[in-house]
């Protein structure tokens, strides 16, 4: 289907470096909608919903935050470390939403597998089903994420 001017504008914005270095799409040539549909399917194929994934991310970040930068046990054999900078980062979608610049790194103590997300990522997944394009410096691979956090 032909893109509306709004979709075109969002696509261009996500590919620009106005909010994050290198943009949110990386080298991905697919439309944003296609990226969202494909990643949502990956999540559903593993038996989860976007809401469940985001809720678990919220839960882990909430516990890890208490460590004030020191890594803490977040349960289920996982270790969580939070790294924060002052200032807010805004959602690239055209609506008012801004987040602390907070990164949560979760490690599966037994396997050593590790994944990092920002508070913005949780919102992007929860509200927009967006895990970022392939090649984006901070794309989250849905399968890897789910394997670690559940």
């Amino acid at each position, binding site marked *: 289907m*032909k893109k509306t001017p709004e979709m075109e504008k969002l696509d261009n914005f996500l590919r620009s470096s106005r909010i994050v270095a290198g943009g949110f799409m990386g080298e991905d040539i697919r439309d944003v909608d296609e990226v969202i549909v494909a990643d949502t399917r990956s999540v559903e194929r593993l038996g989860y919903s976007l809401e469940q994934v985001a809720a678990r991310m919220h839960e882990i970040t909430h516990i890890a935050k208490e460590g004030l930068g020191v890594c803490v046990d977040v349960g289920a054999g996982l270790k969580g470390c939070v790294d924060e*900078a002052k200032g807010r980062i805004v959602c690239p979608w055209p609506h*008012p939403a801004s987040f602390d610049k907070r990164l949560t790194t979760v490690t599966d103590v037994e396997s050593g597998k590790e994944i990092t997300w920002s508070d913005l990522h949780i919102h992007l997944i929860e509200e927009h089903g967006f895990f970022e394009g392939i090649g984006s410096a901070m794309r989250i691979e849905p399968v890897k994420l789910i394997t670690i956090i559940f």
Partner: protein
Amino acid sequence: MVTVFISVLVISSIGGVLALLLVLSEKFIANYGICTVDINAEKQIEVQGGQSLLSCLVEEDIFIPSACGGRGTCGYCKLKVIEGGGLLLPTETPFLSDQEQKDDIRLSCQVKVRNDIFIEIEKELLSVRQYECICSGIEDLTHDIKLFKFGLAGSEEIDFIAGQYVQLLTPVYFKGGEEVYRAYSVASDPLNKGAIELIIRLVPNGICTTYCFEHLSIGDTILMNGPYGEFHLSDTESPMVFIAGGSGMAPIRCILSHMLNTGSKRKAVYYFGANKVSELFMIDEIKQFENDLDDFRFVPVVALPDPAEHWTGLTGLVTEAVESDLENAADYEAYLCGSPGMIEASGKVLAKLGVPEGKIYFDSFA
């Protein structure tokens, strides 16, 4: 199926054409001519109508804080529009309290200048200026924190209050990059008006910090504007507790220099937290203030010291150290600088120690 597809295509095409017509008419047909922006009934500037109020002000070197590049999504660019701003837009209301709406506060990036317009800007913002700064030194403080020293070009001088911050304009340094502003607290002595020192921590994949750590070299010229912010010492004689971690050292170092310059006799204690001993920095320099100031105590705290580091000071989270070391702080004022989590956790501890909420100060954009 085909009919549905064609209908969707037709409807979205009509929508697209209408939106395009609107944009074109705004661009080519609507000519608002030259409009006057009246600022605080003191200064009038003439601008080309049709642009956002924020762009008009920036063109005139009047700097209003902004973190979203004028997209109406950060809410930082508020100012009072007394007359001529048109109707409040739905994009603005989520950022404005009922009181602010009653007081005619608007988001300047959303207000279009289509006619003469009367606005009010806080006096402090009018004194914000842009400075050309030449990098004169870069020092490693920890594995991910550096001290950046800048001299102001020519014989320029910056007047700021200890605790305020500047905005650094990150130049384009990678393909497809864009200029962005980031806030940094001034770490240097306010009496040294020809220089600015910043303490910056590297943020993974961060636009500005990656530039500073990997691209900025001694001799390079960059632009900063400022000063901004309400974070500074009150003019009371109350005892004070400073709590900071990491690059939060910056404004506290500046405030201590200011206390020395002004011969302050206020009682003060400074808790500086780090995860490891190797993440502490400027310890000797800050310890020296214990000798130079009347009643100052410096308490570095390490959360998880390695036994090999032979740490003999306080251990645990900085908030735990404050709680056990300070006991009763009901008559204290608190100055916090660090991550949002640290500020939140410190707030809770200080409340327990009896510090009134109104006496706990930190940058509101933190």
